[in-house]
């Protein structure tokens, strides 16, 4: 089992969700995050003074999947999130030791979906 962590542009969340749904991946958790990456940051001004905003709003997705789902999950995220511009985001993959569904106390691959 893997835990897929993806940082994407906020406005892409709906597209990514749709791609994931098409691939029958319907479970995920979403958090707000501020990202600092190659995108560097852009310049806002407030009252005529520059703000070097180098913490940009990003959406952080966490999706736990069984191993045979990893590829299609990654592809779906890329499909939904990619615009070709700097700031599109990153995907990180971590191994999961276990997964437990609280309601039923099922464990492992059963519990993920």
């Amino acid at each position, binding site marked *: 089992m893997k835990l897929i962590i993806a940082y994407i542009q*906020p*406005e892409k*969340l*709906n597209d990514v969700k749709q791609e994931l749904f098409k691939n029958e991946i319907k479970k995920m958790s*979403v958090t*707000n995050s501020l990202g600092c990456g190659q995108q560097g940051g852009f*310049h*806002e*001004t*407030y009252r005529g003074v520059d703000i070097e905003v180098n913490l940009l*709003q990003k*959406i952080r997705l966490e999706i736990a999947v069984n191993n045979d789902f990893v590829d299609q999950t990654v592809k779906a995220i890329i499909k939904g999130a990619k615009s070709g511009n700097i700031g599109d985001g990153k995907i990180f993959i971590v191994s999961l030791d276990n997964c437990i569904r609280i309601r039923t106390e099922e464990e492992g691959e059963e519990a993920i979906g």
Partner: protein
Amino acid sequence: MRRMIRWFPAALMIILNSSLLFADETAAAVSYKTPPIDFLWMVLAAFLVFFMQPGFALVETGFTRAKNAGNIIMKNLMDFSVGSIAFFVIGYGLMYGDSISAFIGGSNFFLSDAAPLLPKAVNGVVDNSGMLMYAQWIFQAVFAATAATIVSGGMAERTKFTTYLIFSFLITAFIYPISGHWIWQGDGWLTKLGFQDFAGSTVVHSVGGWAAMIGALFLGPRIGKYGPDGKPRAIPGHNIPLAALGVFILWFGWFGFNPGSTLTASGRDGFSMAFIAVNTSLAAAAGAVAAMITIWIRAGKPDVSMSLNGALAGLVGITAGCAFVSPQSSIIIGLISGVVVVLSVQFFDFVLKIDDPVGAVSVHGVCGALGTILVGIFADTNYGGGMNGLLNGGGFKLLGVQAIGILSVFVWTVATCGILFFILKKTIGLRVERNEELRGLDIEEHGMESYSGFQIFRNQ
């Protein structure tokens, strides 16, 4: 009598023997054509109506998304700012200047007819009309700004800022004053017909509402408002407490709007400010209750934002007739408006699919027309107006006149705004880019965030 009183720095007067200053009146027993209390009432009412500006700003801000909050604020600030200068330069003259063919005013631009000096008394009466005109202007200017600001709500979250500025200028300078001339200038053709719109259900609210409708139509719905299946999706407002504060402020300001439209505090017409206030408040209350019940029945829960719209609907609905109907009728008018506003919002959402984020079209356009037509039904000469409605034995006459007025204003607004938005769309464009809309107008148009530091989900 001194024609001109020397002005002392403000608070100074306190110290001077004030009997000197009032010598004019008391001693010489001079009286004024318009008594002081009318000035006082007119400017106070104008202040209250001015205060409706933040009311609108808050309602529109609260009912839309956090990412566009600064933009909608800015639009509200600027439609008043640009608009009131436009109304000073052009609008007021077109509305209240000497009538050209009962259709348009043609004098008094830059308030050229006003005068800060008092003429000599004639037969012991000083004609202070030159000074009164300033009071009239400020009172009318805040009405004009009300019409203009309604539009920003219907066009929220996707309109280009510069386009909106141009539109604000044009509606306050031309569109509103001209139809206003027909109804509120003594020589306007609708006035002569006997059309009755006491405080502006049609003159102000419908004009704003229909303009918002055309604007929303030309813009198209916000991204995500309609699913691929064509079904509307809710885009919840981000700050209901602020929106509610806005509604309460509007309600408060409406006590300037309606009772203030007596334009006098003296004589019988002045006394009627009292029952007009009663009518105004009861209609608002009834509108809120009716909207709450209606949406409760239709959606299963007493929706807060709809109930707030209901109060506004009641206020808009009673505006035309507040001086012509009984409190009982006001309650009924409020109830009708409250039911209709819910049905109308849903009609625009589900059937016409015109995306009006705050319900401006239904509240101001539809309930404005509704309130105007209901005058033809509930008008009662015991209260005022000189013509009875259907239920008080007046027959269909007034009803007919009201219908003509509503229709004329509808056609005028739809036509002029239609042309205007068409031209704006073809030239500088009406709508921001898709990406700008998604990221929010605050960052894209103004380079700022409205709630810096707060964590906000900004998808959609």
